[in-house]
């Protein structure tokens, strides 16, 4: 299969001769050094400590990692986390796709308002949202009361303190994160292509499946990465809406570090998660071009 032509190297930035070579050098190093120091002090050093603790506490070696594989409790947490993240990502992606598609195909006046609606949700703290969902979904919450009063159910539904509650809360949080990359990707699709497909004999659904969907694939992949990685680290929502019954990885790590003081296991889990995410990105980068994915090419 033929592949696009080579990416052309960016032209070299013009050198500023006016400042004198030495001054330019100084400025150059200052600009590089400041972020580098910040990065080392606040990210690389703590991170390497985490990695170090995971192989030194309580004793030197990979004992903590062996425990991750062997302990049924840890395995269950990993399984729960994976399951919830996959369901959340899938639902967020589907809803985000519909939302992005709807926004893009609205009249421009509505478009603005819908965008405001999406962006507004970023302003509401995750904690407040979790409490809001509790108010809505609890046994004597708005939803159950309404359904009971309407005579649709005779017993309150268990909408929180279970996986369902966690997924509802997480999906609600993640939909805008899925919608925005999708929106960016859909915007770049030539609006005449689906009509062109129809002019060539495709039914509307075929036009969508064979033309629109493949062209929005870069957005789907970008959104999936974002949503999946984000949801792996969810802490507040599962803690509140899971009611202690649905333990996800982030909460479990916090538990190890804060309660049982098993720093070794906690950091080993954190490191594993980091490596997993990193590996996911590596595998994905082999499959698709990141530069194209995020609109660079």
């Amino acid at each position, binding site marked *: *299969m033929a592949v*696009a032509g080579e990416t052309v190297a960016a032209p070299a930035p013009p050198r500023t001769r006016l400042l004198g070579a030495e001054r330019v050098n100084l400025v150059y190093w200052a600009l590089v050094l400041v972020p580098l120091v910040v990065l080392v002090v606040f990210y690389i050093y703590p991170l390497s400590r985490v990695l170090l603790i995971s192989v030194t506490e309580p004793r030197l070696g990979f004992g903590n990692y062996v425990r991750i594989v062997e302990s049924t409790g840890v395995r269950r947490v990993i399984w729960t986390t994976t399951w919830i993240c996959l369901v959340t990502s899938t639902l967020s992606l589907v809803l985000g796709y519909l939302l992005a598609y709807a926004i893009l195909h609205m009249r421009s006046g509505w478009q603005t308002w819908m965008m405001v609606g999406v962006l507004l949700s970023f302003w509401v703290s995750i904690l407040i949202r979790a409490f809001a969902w509790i108010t809505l979904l609890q046994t004597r919450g708005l939803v159950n009361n309404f359904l009971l009063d309407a005579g649709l159910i005779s017993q309150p539904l268990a909408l929180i303190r279970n996986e369902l509650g966690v997924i509802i809360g997480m999906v609600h949080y993640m939909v805008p994160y899925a919608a925005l990359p999708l929106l960016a990707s859909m915007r770049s699709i*030539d609006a005449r*292509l689906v009509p062109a497909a*129809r*002019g060539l004999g495709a039914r509307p659904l075929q036009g969508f499946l064979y*033309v629109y969907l493949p*062209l929005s694939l870069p957005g789907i992949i970008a959104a999936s990465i974002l949503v999946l990685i984000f949801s792996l680290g969810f802490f507040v929502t599962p803690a509140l809406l899971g009611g202690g019954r649905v333990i996800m990885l982030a909460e479990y790590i916090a538990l190890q570090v804060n309660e049982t003081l098993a720093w070794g296991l906690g950091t080993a889990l954190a490191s594993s998660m980091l490596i997993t995410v990193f590996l996911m990105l590596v595998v994905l980068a082999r499959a698709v071009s990141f530069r194209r994915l995020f609109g660079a090419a």
Partner: protein
Amino acid sequence: MHHPPERPSAAQAATPTATGHSLSVRGATKLYDGVAALDNVSLEIRRGSFLTLLGPSGSGKTTLLMTIAGFTRPDSGRLLVDDRDVTDLEPEKRNFGMVFQGYALFPHLTVARNVAFPLRIRGRSRSEIRERVQWALDLVQLGHLAGRYPRQLSGGQQQRVALARALVFEPEVLLLDEPLSALDKTLRADLQWELKDLHRRLGMTFIYVTHDQEEALSMSDEIVIIRNGRVVQKGAPLELYELPQTRFVAGFLGKSNFLSGTVRRDPAGRAMLTAGSVSIHLPDGPSHEGDKVLLAVRPEKIAVAARPPADGRNAVRGALVDWNYYGSTTHCRLDTAFGLFHAQFGTWGSQIDLARGRDMWLVWPKEAGVVVVDDG
């Protein structure tokens, strides 16, 4: 579906593969916010003809094409293909080929897969698709680029892919929406020849939209001039150019000088157009003394001379304002009693001595003029 035993092959590319269909638009009207984009348009398009919808931007020519294609639903009016009413059919059910402005190639598919698209949608067999795609790509001389992606092609090549894609499934009619407008002038001229040749070889009905009058004149069997959602005039290119009925057509299709005045008779009883002290002969035709008339005269039919003619041809005196040299032709502007006049003559062999401000004579035989309706 029953297939004939022999499939068309690349070697048969020169033989017509689709018979033409006739098309009939009856009273199509489309309003946008109360403004008529199409105002009771009726058209008969003969089978196998190359018909061009020509008009300025916003005239409704694209709305008409989109109505024919099925993307725009008319508020009233019918569309018939060979007496079959297709007004209520969705675009994908009409089996028309369409070349969009900007081509609308699918960027995620190779040239071959772009061309194969209409066949895949129709569920044709793999071997048939391969043969038809080969045929269509050979037709536009792009067989060697089948594996490329659209973005790797030049504008002219993309245009040909769009053409191949629109023809590969043997549509009943081919619709083309300003297919050459994005190309540079030389390439456009080349593709005009090719399109015309393709039309002749395929024998299909082509409906072509353009705002480029030269394109319309050079390729069409019939031109329909559209303005404000209405058909202003239609006819063969020669007929439209030589005998425009209105001021708009005379000025839009080619250039014209306009002279307005009143009909008078000279002592010999011939009809004259008179404005102030100037009188010129009108072409033969019915005219009533005292009527207001508008005469259109093409710049290339006017000769520029240093002296008034002795043979009784029409002559108007004017001062040379300016001229442009275009190589093969030279265009002059002269200030006359009728306002600014344009004249155009072949540069080669011309003996005229041009100098700004010089008084000259614009000379034309009376048959060169056309009386037109003044539609503003």
